[in-house]
Each structure stands twice: as C-alpha cells, then as structure tokens.
C-alpha cells in the first residue's frame, strides 16, 4: 500500500522500471497463445465502438438489412447532422447540441469548485491541527460510499426551499458536494508526501494560512490538479442520475438528453441517429482519456487507494 502512495506523491516519476535479463525474442507456443488471447480480448472491447461508428454512418435502408458488422455501402454523415441539430429530446427537436452546451456549463464550474475545495481541505488537513477535523474527514470518507438515493430526497427539498432546485447553480452545488470526498482524499494523500520542512520554512518566512496555500501549495500541486481535472471532467460529464434530478429542464446534461433521444421516441427508431448521438456524447470523455493517457490511469489508482 505504501508503495502505491509513494508513487502518487512522486507524480512525475515514471513507473518502476523493470531490470531483467534481456531475453532473445522467441515465438514459443505459449507466447503466441498469449498474443492470441490479448488480441481476442481487444476485439471484444473494441467491438461496440466499431458497431457504434459503423451504424452511425449508414442510411436506414442498410441498417434494416440486419448486417450489424458490415461496413457502410452508402457512407453518409446525415445521421450525425440530424443527431446534433434536429433530434427530439422530449418536447423540443433541436438536437443534442443543447445537451452538449448544458453539460459544458455544468462541468466547468463544478470541476473548478470541487477541485478548489478538495485542495483546500487536503491542505488544511495535512498541515494544520484542527481538533475535529480528523473525525470529520473519516465521516467524509465513509460518505463516499453512500448511495446517492439515500440523500437525494432531503437535498431536493432543501434546494427547493432556497429556490436552487432545477437551476444551474443547484446542480453545480450538488456536484461540488458529492465530489468533495474523492477530491479531498486525492489532495490529502498528495500533500502527505510534501516535506514538512517546506511548510515550516514558509511559516518562518511569515506566511499565513491562505498565503501559503495560494502561493506555495497550489502552484506545487499542478500534477495532482491535472489528475483531478481529468477525473472530475470525466465523472461529471458522464453523470446521469444527479443531472436528471437536479438540473432542471433547461439545463439537462448531454447524458440525460441522449437517453431521451433514444428511449423516448415514438414512431420509427432511427438507429443511425441514435448511435451518432451516443458517439457525440462520448466524444469528450474519450478525447480526455486518449489525450491524458497515463494521467487518467493515475487518477484511477489514486482514487482507488483509499486512506
């Protein structure tokens, strides 16, 4: 466990290099079998992506032929255009672009707010002694496991009382609250690896709580902030339940709109448009994933190793 924590607190270190004797390349049956298994697993994982892509580029006549895996014969981008600008998401038919912008408006403030509070909490917990903080932190960690359903109804009523229910501010607030446990844990683990001499030196230099935070700790936290941004952007963008309940009809995120487009249509189902809409919704998190690579992985293992 300590090995993993150490790795987190050395964010720019590459994974432990393996020093083994150089083997000459060999193609034993075992080796070939290994590659065969890996490739077939890769096929299993890639299949839905392939089907999504291929279906979204076919006209409906081809889809009705029932050849799920065939490449498109009459290649067309029309389903994508339709999904983006004219698909029906409930009462209006302005396409899923509405959901896209709603999600952007939700994700950006929520990410910034939840990371700020996570960093602040992590910093205060790591370097300062506050009597009740340890206990509160413990309950916060426990809270990360509680299913949302247990807390949703009281939150709905509370937000309704202060007129925040169904507003953009409301959903950002909710995401900030529910992001606090993981973000606080992330930063606390990171700051645990910062030498206390640094902090003490800053104190001797006359730094107070806030000055040390903004001028020393935050700038030093860029690697973990990167990880946090990736985690929060992905998780908040992909969220469905909280957006469904708290965002209100004008701010429904893309995931909710996507479900509306596909599962609540009357008349003929346009499978190509559906798949195009699904791809559009998945593009941002997939892009973040592909670009961030190793950082995404770090986010998972850091968030996964609790305590």
């Amino acid at each position, binding site marked *: 466990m*300590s090995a993993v924590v150490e790795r987190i607190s050395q964010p720019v270190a590459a994974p432990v290099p393996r020093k083994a004797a150089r083997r000459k390349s060999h193609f034993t049956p075992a080796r070939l079998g290994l590659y065969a298994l890996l490739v077939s697993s890769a096929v299993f*994982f890639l299949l839905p992506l392939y089907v999504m892509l291929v279906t979204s580029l076919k006209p409906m006549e081809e889809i009705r032929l029932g050849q799920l895996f065939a490449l498109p014969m009459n290649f067309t981008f029309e389903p994508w255009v339709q999904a983006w600008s004219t698909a029906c998401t409930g009462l209006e038919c302005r396409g899923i672009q509405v959901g896209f912008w709603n999600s952007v408006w939700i994700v950006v403030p929520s990410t910034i707010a939840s990371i700020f509070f996570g960093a602040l909490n992590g910093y205060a917990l790591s370097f300062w002694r506050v009597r009740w903080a340890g206990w*509160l932190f413990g309950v916060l960690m426990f809270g990360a496991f*509680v299913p949302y359903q247990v807390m949703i109804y009281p*939150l709905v009523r509370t937000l309704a009382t202060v007129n925040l229910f169904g507003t953009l501010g409301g959903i950002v607030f909710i995401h900030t609250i529910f992001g606090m446990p993981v973000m606080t844990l992330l930063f606390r683990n990171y700051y645990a690896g910062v030498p206390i001499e640094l902090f003490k030196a800053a104190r001797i230099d006359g730094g107070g709580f806030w000055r040390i935070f903004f001028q020393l700790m935050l700038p030093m936290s860029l690697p973990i902030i990167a990880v946090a941004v990736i985690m929060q952007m992905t998780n908040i963008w992909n969220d469905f339940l909280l957006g469904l309940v708290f965002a209100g009809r004008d701010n429904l995120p893309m995931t909710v709109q996507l*479900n509306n487009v596909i599962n609540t249509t009357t008349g003929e189902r346009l499978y190509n448009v559906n798949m195009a809409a699904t791809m559009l919704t998945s593009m941002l998190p997939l892009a973040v994933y592909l670009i961030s690579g190793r950082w995404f*992985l770090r986010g998972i*293992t850091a968030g996964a190793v609790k305590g």
Partner: protein
Amino acid sequence: MSTTLPRPQPVRRKRAAAAQLALLPMALTVLGVYIGAVLWSVRISFSSSKIFPKNDFVGFSQYERLFATERWTVSLHNIAIFGVLFILACMVLGFFLAVFLDQRVRGENVLRTIFLYPYAMSFVATGLVWQWMLNPGLGIQAAVRNLGFPDFQFDWIVNQDKVIYTLVIAAVWQASGLVMAVLLAGLRGIDESLWNAARIDGVPRWRYYLSVVLPQLGPAFGTSFVLLAVGVVKVFDVVVAMTLGGPGNASEVPAKFIMDNLFNRANVGLASAASTVLLLTVLALLMPWWYARSVQSRKLGHS
C-alpha cells in the same frame, strides 16, 4: 520518501482559526449532507409520507410494505445475481488481462488503452450501445443468422429470465478495465527479484503467480472488490438506458425502484425505507473491509 512522516505539532491554536474557517464547507457538507440528509431519509422511512413528508410515526410499516412489494423483492433478487456474476467476471477477466499485460508484450500501451477506454464512457452510452447490439431483429442475432446460421438465438434482452445476463455483459465490458488497471498497478509494485529467485529455484511461472503473486495482490483485490461492490449497489444508469427495468419487471434494480417511487409514484416513505435498506447493505459490505484495513494499518504502525 517515507509516507509515515509523523507530523510534529503544527500550529499554535490562534493561527488555526484560518484553518477552521477554511474547513467550514467540509464540516457543513459532512454534517448537513452525509449525516443530516441520511438521518432525515431514515426518519421519513418511519413515517407515512406519500408525496410530501409527514411528521407522523408508523413504526416499521413502510418496511413491511416494502418487502411485500413484488417489484422490490425482484429487484433484490436481480441485484444479487448481477452482483455476484459481475464482480466475479470483472475480477477474473481483470486479473488475466493484468497478468498478460505484465508479460512484457509489445504494444502494451495500445492494449492497455483499448482495455480501459470503456471505463471512460458514461454508463448511459454503454447501456445504449449494448441495447442496440443485442437487438434481436437487427443486432447480433440477425447478423449471425444472415451469415448462415438461421437457428442462432441471442434474444436475451427480451427474455424475462435472461435479461439480467445482458446487463452483466455490458457492465463487465465497461468495468473490467478498471480492475485490470488496479491489479496491474499492484503487479508492478511486486519486486522483480522475487521472480528471479523463484526461477533459480526452478519454480514454473504459473506456480509463481499462484503462490507468490496472488497473496501479494490481496490489497489490490480488496480495493477492486469494494469499488465493484459499491458500483453494484448503485447501478442505475445502465439499467435505465439498456432495458428500463424490462421486459416487465425482469431487470428491475433497487436504485431504480427507489427513484421511481420517489419521483414518479409519489411514495416517499416507501422509497426512503428502500434506500435505508440499501444503505445498510453497503455498510454490511464495507465493515469487514474497513475492519481488515484498520487491523492491517495498526500492524504496520501507521495511523
């Protein structure tokens, strides 16, 4: 760099006022949301609330009503089957993928990217894609039949007895990458010299994995299990997207039951009872793990 830095007494109490102020949001969140909202929900479960919360006290009658509701018992049954299959499949698949990737294969980065990308997608997208692929008339069943196997059957998604397995397939596709990532990180933390020593002793590689690697991966397995288990209890998005609980009630799950009763059917008291049961289940799952971890960290001298 040691992680067991004992923190010498930081600050004088005066200066800590700023720290207290800074931690106020966290305090409010913990007290107001994680404790307050939970307690409030539990309180409502003991009342006869329908659309609006009522302040009366009806003992355990909501719970009795709950367990007499067929949709609820079906959902519990489903979540149990789903949970066992999903966790088992993810752990096994994740473990083998991690082990295979650890064999110094070429293209490891590409393969790892492929195995993990489903985890970056939303559950809704996953449910929708698999719903499409498992469509009997136009999906996999039709495609294979068109290839010349007219009797091929894969219409599980509209079959009341088999629909739960389709959910398992979609969920395993999404989450095995996560288990693989966690286990691979664990594998990479195992000292290479152990394998060299074992090889000198003539121990075959599979035996090495069985007797040396697996035990050392204990914590990683534990972490994966907890992550998966918590996900199982919460599973909602993928069901709504893929089957909407259908056909009929055949793929109903507790989280969806609660949401339906809370918002669509105005049965707040009943839904609160159900969510309390859900909470207790999560606690029951977590207690052994927390206990094991606190024992372990006490043994290692951390705090």
